[in-house]
Every structure is written in C-alpha cells, then in structure tokens.
C-alpha cells in the first residue's frame, strides 16, 4: 500500500474544500479509499476544487485519482490524474512528493480503461526510479505489451520476471513467445507462471495449448483435466477435445466438444472440431450437420471480422470518433471478444462521456465479463446523467438481484 504524504497547511487557503480534502486525505492514510472517494468526487464534480489555491489543486486531483483507482473507478482516476498533471501540476506534485505515485496511478488507470498509449505516454514522464521499481516495471511492461510494442515489452517483462516472483511477468512473457511461434519457451514460462501462482486460469489454458502444439498431447491432457476440475469452461472442454483428437480418442473428443458447445453454442472452433471428430468416427451425416452449423457461424464471424477491420481502420484515422468506437465495440461483443469490446467501449465513453449508448454498452460488456461492481458503476453513472433511462435501470436492478444478494 502506498503512503500518502501528509497534507498540511497548504490547503488552508480554501477552508470548505480544504477541510473536505483533509478529511479525505486522512481517510486515505487510514486505508479507507471509499470514504475519500465519496468526499472528493462530489466536490470535484461541483467544481469546488476551484476554491482551492492554484498550487493545491493538483494535489486534490491526484488524491481523487488515487482514491478512484483504489475503488476501481478507473475512468474518474484517469481523468483526475490528467487534471492533476495539467500545466505545472507535475512540478507542484514533485515538490509535494506525489508526482511518481500520481503518474503510476494514471498509467495503471489508463491500462484499466484499455488505453495503452496513454499509459505509455504517462510512463515516459515518470522518472527512471519509478519506472524501474517492481510496480513500475509491471506497468511499463504491460503498457508496452498492450500497445503492441513487443520488443520493448519483452525487454521489460524479462527485467520484471527476474526481479520479482510475479506470476504475471512469466505469463505475459510466455504469451509473447507463444505468439511468436516459440511454443517450447512459452511452455516453460507458463509452467513458471503456474509455479508462482497455481490458480492462474489463463496460464493453465496457455500451458495446455503450448504442450498440445508441441505434440505433447498427453501432457496437455493432464493439464486440461486439472483445469477442468477447477474451472469447467467452454474453452477448457474444447481444449480437452483437441488433446483427445490428437490422441485419436475420437469418441471422447466428440463428447468434450459437445460439452463445450453446451456452454457456448456458437463456439465456431468447437463446432468445427466436433465435425472433425465425427468424421473420424465415420459418422458422415452427423459430421456434416456439425460442419454445416460451423459454416453458418463461421460465415457470420468472417463478415463480422471484415466489418470490424474496416471500422478499426476508420477509428485509427479518427481516434476520437465515439460513434465508430461504439459500433466497433458492439461488433466485438457479438463475436465474444470481450477484451476488444471493452477497449472500444471505453474509447467511446472517454471520447464522449455523456454518450448513453456507449456507457450502456460498456456496462453490458462488464456484466458479460463477470465484473459486476464495475458494471454497476457504469449503470449508476448513466442513470445519474439520464435518470429515466429505463434499460439502464432495469439492467442494474437485475444485476443487483442476481449478484448482490445478501448484501446491503
């Protein structure tokens, strides 16, 4: 946990706001970010930070950013930190010992709103010391990874991996090697990630995939079986089927693909592989039926990807085009690409914070991703701006009913 420098006499120039901020700062010191956030956010929204002395405003914004990050409101956190760092804010924060914390928090929040480029730009402003701390290395590595600068990501991931015992470092380095086609190195790294954190679902999935692609189907099957016992997802059933296919256990493979499809009926890869397994079993009609279904899903998927590619290009030319970002997010969601959908929905929301459609879509994506608190926040924010928004209200109520049972 970070330690916030004591806020002192500098805030006394604006008594009302200053008092509130002092209370918030104390709450942060006490580890109660929620109280700090609840005090600071309304104050910021009602422009009361304007009551502060100019030299004290960056600190106030930074404090809000830190509190918002801690309560998982990355949108507010990013916006607050950007305000804090405006004009000579960085210098003032430096003098107050807050600059590095503010920059790192902004970079993390930027990653949370899927804006890797903002994260990278922010980190460039952080000092070498901040960047080379364990947390700094983590954020720098992830920012480079998600921005697609893989050579830089590799370099920093290696530093991070060797200077810590963080599972994530091994995992992301493994993904990087996997995507470059070096399955052997990738497998080594996924296994290391699992030694560091045996519960990592994605490291397990990737470890099995790498073993399978190294023609070590029996090893992969053992990993997948262990995974399935803990996390029976459509992906893990599918992967089990692929291992069994490789081991020429066609009947069992078909069973695994069917189970995968029970959980995710439009899972194109599972439909295709089911058709393959049934063909190997000599069940031509059943194979054809599965493949016809696959063909339908696959065709729609191809069309979706073509549209998405065209929209992505449009967005690259006009990064602030909220409508295109929203349309792209919708297409990503249709294709179950939750990462892509969230990234584009955030882009729509950040380009046009008052956009009803973008925020509703973001909330729905977060629900699909199982991130209910974050989704609830988006519904609340939408309802705050549009109190009569029926869909948002109904979906939020539904969310609370299903996932907040037993809570106050």
């Amino acid at each position, binding site marked *: 946990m970070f330690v916030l420098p004591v806020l002192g006499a500098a805030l006394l120039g604006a008594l009302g706001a200053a008092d509130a901020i002092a209370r918030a700062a104390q709450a942060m010191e006490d580890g109660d970010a929620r109280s700090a956030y609840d005090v600071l956010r309304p104050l910021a929204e009602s422009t009361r930070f304007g009551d502060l002395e100019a030299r004290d405003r960056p600190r106030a914004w930074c404090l809000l950013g830190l509190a918002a990050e801690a309560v998982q409101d990355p949108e507010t956190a990013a916006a607050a930190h950007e305000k804090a760092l405006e004009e000579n804010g960085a210098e003032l924060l430096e003098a107050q010992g807050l600059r590095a914390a503010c920059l790192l928090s902004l970079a993390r929040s930027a990653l949370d709103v899927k804006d890797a480029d903002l994260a990278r730009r922010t980190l460039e402003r952080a000092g070498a010391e901040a960047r080379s701390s364990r947390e700094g290395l983590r954020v720098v590595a992830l920012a480079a990874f998600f921005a697609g600068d893989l050579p830089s990501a590799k370099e920093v991931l290696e530093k991070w991996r060797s200077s810590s015992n963080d599972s994530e470092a091994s995992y992301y380095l493994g993904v990087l090697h996997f995507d470059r086609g070096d399955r052997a190195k990738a497998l080594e790294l996924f296994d290391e990630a699992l030694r560091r954190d045996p519960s990592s679902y994605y490291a397990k999935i990737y470890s099995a995939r790498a073993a399978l692609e190294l023609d070590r189907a029996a090893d992969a099957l053992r990993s997948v079986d262990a995974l399935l016992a803990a996390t029976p997802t459509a992906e893990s059933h599918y992967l089990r089927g692929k291992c069994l296919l490789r081991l020429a256990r066609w009947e069992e493979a078909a069973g695994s693909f069917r189970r995968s499809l029970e959980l995710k009926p439009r899972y194109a890869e599972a439909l295709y592989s089911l058709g393959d397994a049934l063909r190997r079993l000599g069940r031509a009609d059943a194979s054809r039926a599965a493949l016809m279904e696959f063909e339908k899903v696959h065709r729609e998927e191809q069309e979706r*990807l*073509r549209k998405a590619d065209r929209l992505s290009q449009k967005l690259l030319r006009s990064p602030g085009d909220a409508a295109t970002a929203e349309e792209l997010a919708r297409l990503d969601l249709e294709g179950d690409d939750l990462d892509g959908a969230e990234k584009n929905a955030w882009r729509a929301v950040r380009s046009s914070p008052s956009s009803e459609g973008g925020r509703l879509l973001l909330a729905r994506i977060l629900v699909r991703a199982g991130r209910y608190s974050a989704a609830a926040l988006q519904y609340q924010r939408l309802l705050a701006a549009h109190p009569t928004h029926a869909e948002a209200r109904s979906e939020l109520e539904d969310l609370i009913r299903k996932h907040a049972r037993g809570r106050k």
Partner: protein
Amino acid sequence: MKASNFAAGCLASLAALSCSPRENSREPRLQFEDIAPQAGLDRVARSGSATKLWILENIGTGCALFDADGDGRLDVFLANAGVVSGSELLPGPGPALYLQVADKRFADRTEAAGLKSDAWQTGVAVGDVDNDGDLDLFVAGYRRNALYRNRGGGVFDEATQAAGLQSDRFATSAVFLDYDRDGFIDLYSANYVRFDPRRPPNDGKPCIQSGVEVACGPGHCDPEPDRLYHNERGEKFTDASDAAGISSAEGSYGLGTAAGDIDDDGWPDVYVANDTTANFLWRNLQGARFEDVALYRGAALSDSGQGQAGMGTEIADADGDGAMDIFVTNYSEENNAFYRGLGNGTFEEASRSAGLADASFLMLGWGAKCIDLDNDADLDIVVANGHVWPQAGQVNKALTYEEYCSVYLNTGSGRFVEQGSSMFAVRKSYRGLAVGDVDADGDVDILLTALDSPPCLLENRGVSLGHWISLRLEGTKSNREGIGARVWVTAGGTTQVRDVTRGGSYLSASDARLHFGLGRARAADAVRIRWPSGLEEKLGPLEAGRRYHIVEGMGGAPTPEAAPTPGQPR
C-alpha cells in the same frame, strides 16, 4: 553438379550451407547457385510503387519453365506487372520469353515470339490447348487475360478474343486440366478481389498497422469469383463456371490453384488456396460438375477451423503413403498448412506432426512445389517467401519484407526438416516458383520470381543421393501432354505416385516431365500409367539416369531421349 564434381563446386560462389560431401555427414547437403545473371535472365519484374500501398501491387508475378520452341530444352517465361503513378497503372518493362540457346544460356526473344504486352500480368499457365504438339501460354492479369497460341518454334499469336478467354477480373493463378477427359485441356482461373485504382478501398487511404501505413488486405474489397473454362476441341473456350457449379461458391479471394486426383477416382480435382477465407477443394463429379468438399473433407481451414491467408498450393503425395496430400502456403504468423491425405479422399491438418508448422510461422509463403531435390526417392518441399508490405519490419520487428526461401527435406517418414534458410540465394520478396531440370543433368532446378527484381534460377548443385528417371508423356487419345495422367513408379521396393501437371505453386507453371528420384535403385522396376483416357499401361524395368518419352497406347515401349540440343526441334 554431381558428387564427383564436388571439389570444383566448393570453389564456386555458392549460396549453400556446406561443401561437405554426403558421406561425411548424416545430413544431405543441398547446394544451389543462382545462375540467372550469367544465364542472361535479367528482366526486372515490376510490381507497382516502392511503398506498395495497394493490394494490386503486392500480388507479384509468376513464371514458367517450358519448352517454348520445341528443342527439348526448358525455356523461361516471366510475367510482368507495371508501375503505379498516382491512380494510374502504367506499363513496366513487360514480360519476357527467354529461349535457352545454349547450355544454361538464355536469349531474350520476347518480341520475335510475339509476347510483348503492356498488360498488368500476374499468373502463367502452360499447356497444349489444341494438341498440335507445341505449348501454348495463358497469362492471367488484372482486367486482362491473354491466350498465346504457339505457331511452332516458339512464335506465338495472341488469340484471347477468339478463344473466348477475355476477362475484366483480377485473375491470379490458373491451371490447365482435362476435367471432362475429352482429350482437350480446360482451364481453371482463380480470381482475387474487385479493385479499382480510381476508387481504392478504405476511402482511398492506406490501412494502418501498428502506426504504419500499409496496403489494406483483401477484406477491404469484394471477392472476385473464379472461372472454369471448357476447351471446345482446341478451337475456343466456353465459360463453364455456372454449369459446372463453380459459380456456386461463396465469395473468396483466390490466389493459388492446383489440379490433381485427390480421391484416386480417375477424375482430376481442383484445389484453390484462398486468401483469408476457406480454401476450395473442387471434387470432380465425373466431368460434369464440381462440388466444394474442402470443409467436409478436412482441407479448408486451419487445425482450429480458422481461415488462413492461403497463397500458393501443391497437390502431391508428399509423405509417400500413396494418398495425395495438399500443401498450402500462408501468411506470416500463420504456419503453412499440410493437409495429409488419409486415403479416402479426406484429410487431416498435419503441419505440426509433419514438422512444417513452427518453421514457417514467421514467413509469408507463396510459390511451393514438392520435388525430390536430392533423388533419395521422396518428395521435399520448396517454398518462395516474402512479405506483402515493404513496411513489414516497422509493423513487427520479427518480420522482414525480403525473406529467404525455405526448403524442407523429407526424412522419409512423412516428416520434414527445414534446411538452413540462407541456402536459397538472397533475401527478396519472392512470389512465383517453377521447377524443372533446366540443364538436363538429372536433378531438378528452381526458377523464382521476386517483386521489383530479376528472377533467380537456382541450379541444383547438391550431392545427389540416388539415381533418377524422368518421364515425358504424350497422349494420343488423351490430351497431348497427358495432363492428369497418374504414374506409379516402383523401385527398390518403394512405390511413388505422381500426377502429370504443370500447375500448383503460385502464379507459375512448371515442367510437365515427371522426375522420380530412385535412391539406391539402379532401375525403376515397374511403371504403371493411368492415362486420362482411362487406358492403363505397364512398363519397365527402366534403367535409371535416363529421360524417357512415353506415348499413350504404344504397348509400354518408352523411348529413351538423348540430352537435348538447343535450337534443334524434336
């Protein structure tokens, strides 16, 4: 060059891994020398601008190895595209026909041969369309195909309109096959995208990848459907696409084509490598119609059911189990696909177990042929590589625009081992690839095209691991070159099977002679031929180290051919 010439070979400037003789190593030693410059093959294949920001510019051009003038020597045809100025497509240096006038010496006879053209050309197909004993030329192109009829002696007349082969599509690879076995070769022409330089895709702007401007991929354009042309007894062609069911295909981006009998039913089938979409396997329904069975037979997609960026393709029994396999070259960060034939006309994607996956992962493959490079009685694979974007290295530092070609040697057990990547000449953005024994010395040589570059003619100077025979078929009831004939050769207890074709690879046409490495066997004990007419003939034994001419219906009596003499028509 053979093992006996080993010492001299070491003195030559070879693009080779090693000069160690085979005897000193467990690994075969392949050696190739690019003899194009000294052979006089210097035509630069122009393909648009340096930045190549249109899809049209990165498709490239093909080549052909064929005996244009009937003197028994292989000659070279190089297609050519053009240059781009603003939104204008302008002619480049044009195509080139090089006749082999002396041993490994070529002379440019393009103009005299009547092959000058200002078209934006792409692919080349070669075949005797009128069964008159000389080889005709089909050159595919952007909005302009051309059929050149060979008058004899390597002089051609353009006969596109009269033959009914004019087209305003963006044609790529084409292959001749006699799909209805009527004795005349028909033509399958793959088409790519609808592209208009006056209205380029993405609102006329290049696409952006990792912050770099590059050409937009095919998904930004509508697909252009393929065509099948039926040969009306050598007089003309009619578009049979609708009648034969080819038009029923979902829109796809066709790039590579190959013909071969994939289910051993005696009827030639067609495989098409499609860019980003499912590949086609057109099963021939006894000459009347085709149906696309690629998906249902396991030869359409990647192992996980993803469409890959298919470029070139080859049908051959690469693993030597008697069933035809299909090899497809794909985009960078996708491995090349190896669809192993399971013997009943179905396939499994076996690139990984065949050792062909990881080795090709970062490369972007185009032309490919399965040939026995070292005469050890199994088929090896050669692949022409090169990225589509000159900016590839900026987009992803693991990639390069200019790449080495790849060679995968068959271990004899259905697995392949990649050889040193620098073996094949220099890095270029290669595209077309055709094969044939250019110097008639008993091993197969390789012709390559590359963007904005003269061709490479790679003379095979490796240490031969065995004996060989070469078979040239001549149909009498079947089409003149015996295109589509299936030949089984048994030597030393091993049987190899090949189909006669000039197609496969990418945009290119190879020699139709069948070259069989025999390993240690000094003779082919038995040769069985199934002609397109249905006639089956058995021959043999045939002494190794010779080229044979086999005429359909002559009762199995092949004629050994002498080494050809340049300039002397047979």
